[in-house]
C-alpha cells in the first residue's frame, strides 16, 4: 500500500538538478511526480519514480546522497473543500503531516495527493476508517 519516495540532497546551484535527472534518464527511469523543498544553500528533491531502487542505485553510483521513504498516495475528490475535509480528518486523528504534494495525473476524476506522515501505520489505519482510498503502488507507478 505504501509508495516508495526517492529523496535526493542537492546543493542550490545551477545544473545540479539537471545532472541528477540526467543520471535517471540514462537508466530509463520515469519520474511520475517531483517536488523540491529548498533553503538558501541546498534543497531536497522528492520524487515518485517507476523504479526507486534502481534510481537510488544509479544516483549513489554517481555520488549523489539519496534515500527512500515510505509515503501514502491518497485519492481526494477534485472539488472545493475536499482537501480541507481530508486535513480535518487527519487532525482529528492527531496525524502530523511532515509534508505533502500533488500527483500530476488524476485518477478517475479524483486528485491524488502524496502525504508524508510521521507515523505511516497510524495514518493508514485512520484513513481506512474514514473511507479514504489509498492508491496502490502498482497504480501509481504504472507497472
Amino acid at each position, binding site marked *: 500500500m505504501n509508495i516508495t*519516495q526517492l*529523496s535526493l*540532497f*542537492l*546543493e542550490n546551484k545551477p545544473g*545540479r538538478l539537471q545532472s541528477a535527472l540526467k543520471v535517471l534518464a540514462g537508466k530509463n527511469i520515469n519520474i511520475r511526480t517531483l517536488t523540491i*523543498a529548498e*533553503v538558501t*544553500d*541546498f534543497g*531536497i528533491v*522528492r520524487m515518485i519514480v517507476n523504479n526507486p531502487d534502481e534510481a537510488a542505485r544509479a544516483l*549513489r*553510483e554517481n*555520488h*549523489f*546522497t*539519496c*534515500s527512500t*521513504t515510505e509515503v501514502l498516495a491518497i485519492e481526494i475528490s477534485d472539488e472545493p473543500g475536499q482537501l480541507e475535509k481530508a486535513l480535518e480528518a487527519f487532525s482529528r486523528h492527531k496525524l502530523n503531516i*511532515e*509534508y505533502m504534494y500533488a500527483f500530476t495525473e488524476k485518477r478517475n476524476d479524483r486528485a491524488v495527493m502524496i502525504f*508524508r506522515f510521521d507515523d505511516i501505520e497510524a495514518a493508514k489505519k485512520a484513513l481506512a476508517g474514514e473511507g479514504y482510498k489509498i492508491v496502490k503502488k502498482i497504480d501509481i507507478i504504472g507497472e
Partner: protein
Amino acid sequence: MFNKEYEAMQVSKLREVQLERLRWSVKHAYDNVPFYRQSFDAAGFKPEQIQSLDDLRRVPFLMKQNMRDAYPFGLFAVPMEKVVRIHSSSGTTGNATVAGYTRNDIDIWAEVMARTIACAGGSSKDVVQVAYGYGLFTGGLGAHYGAERIGATVVPISGGNTERQLMLIKDFGTTMLACTPSYAINMADHVERNRPDYDFRKTKLRAGIFGAEPWTEQMRSEIETRMGVEAFDIYGLSEVIGPGVSCECSAKSGLHVFEDHFYVEIIDPESGEVLPEGEKGEIVYTSLTKEACPVIRYRSRDISRLYRTPCSCGRTLVKMEKVTGRSDDMLIIRGVNVFPSQIEAVLMEVEGTEPHYQIIVDRKDALDDIEVMVEVNERIFSDELKVMNQLAARIKQRMQSVLGVSAKVTLVEPRTLARSEGKAVRVIDRRKLK
C-alpha cells in the same frame, strides 16, 4: 618489543646514551654544514659547550624556512657518494624540504619503524599492507622497510585504488594496514557505499598504523568500529626521518618517542623557552644519530606535551601526547586561536558526521569569516528539511561553544570537497590572497 635494550632502558642510562650521541651530532653538524656553523657562531656557541643535555638550550633553532632556503642539498653533512636515498616534501607552500639518507640512516629508519610495528603488536607473523604513498613521500618506503626489518610479509600496494586494497586485504590475508587515517575512513566509506557484500570483520585485518596527519580520538573510534581493527597512531616527519619518530603502544596513552635516536624538547612557541615536562607547547627535535641530514633543534610546529610515566607496555621511553594541532595550521579568527582538529572533533561528535569537511576563512569588511563546509552522506541525510536544518544548527551551536567563534555551516553534496588518497585539504585561507 623490538629492541628491549633501548626501549626499556633505565632512564639514567638512556640519558648517558643521549648525551654521548648529542655531542657527536652537534659537532657533526657544526663541522660539516655551513648553515649550522654560521648559526652557532652567530650565537657564540661551540659544540664543546655541550656538557649536559640541558646545554642544548643554548643552541639556536632550525626553522622550516632554513630548510627551504637550503634547497636542495644545503643541509647535507656528508658527500653525495655517501647518500643512498633522497626524500622530499611536496613543497606546496614554498620550496620543498629535502632529506638525504646514508646507508646507516636507512638502517636506523628501518629499526625505528620495526619498533613502531612491534609497538602496535606486529611481528614476523603479520601481513602488512602498506597503503601509504611510495615515492618521495616518506610514508610508503618508511613503513615498507620497517615491516621487512621485523620480518613481516609486506604488501607494497601504495596509496589509492580502493577496490584493489579491499581485494588484497581479503585475498592476501592482510593483518595490518598502514595508511593515513583519512584514507582508512575513505575505505570504510567506499565499502559502505558500494560493497554491501564486503565485511572487514570477515577478513584477517586486526590493526592499523595510521599517521602522516593529525587525527582525533573520535576518528579513532570511528575507524575501529567501522573496520573492526585496533587503530594506532604513528608519528614522524620527513625533516627528522619520516614515520618512526614515535608511536602508540597497546596502552594508547600517548606516543613513545624513540629517544635514543631523537631528542625532544617542548618550547613555548612565542618565547622559545623550554617548558617543564607536562606542559603543552611546540615540539623541537634534535637527531642523535643521523648522518646525512642532522637536525639540531628543529622547530616542528607540532603542538604536544611530554610525560614520562611508567607504561604498562614496559617501555621507559618518554611519551608525547597525540598531536592534534600544528602551530602552522592554527587559524586566528577574530583574535581566537582555532585548530582545524577542534572543528573535526565537533563534526565527529555530532551524530554520524564524518570528517569530510573543509574550512574556508575569508575576510569581509575587515572581519574574519569562517565557513565550515560539510559533505552530506546518507547517514545524516533526511527527506525532512527540518531535520537537515537541525543538523546544521547543531553543528553551528557546538562550534560556537567549542571554538568560541561563530562559524557558518554549509551542507554540501558528497565529493564536492577536495579529497585525496593521501593528506586531506582541510583549510582554505582566502585572507592570505588579499
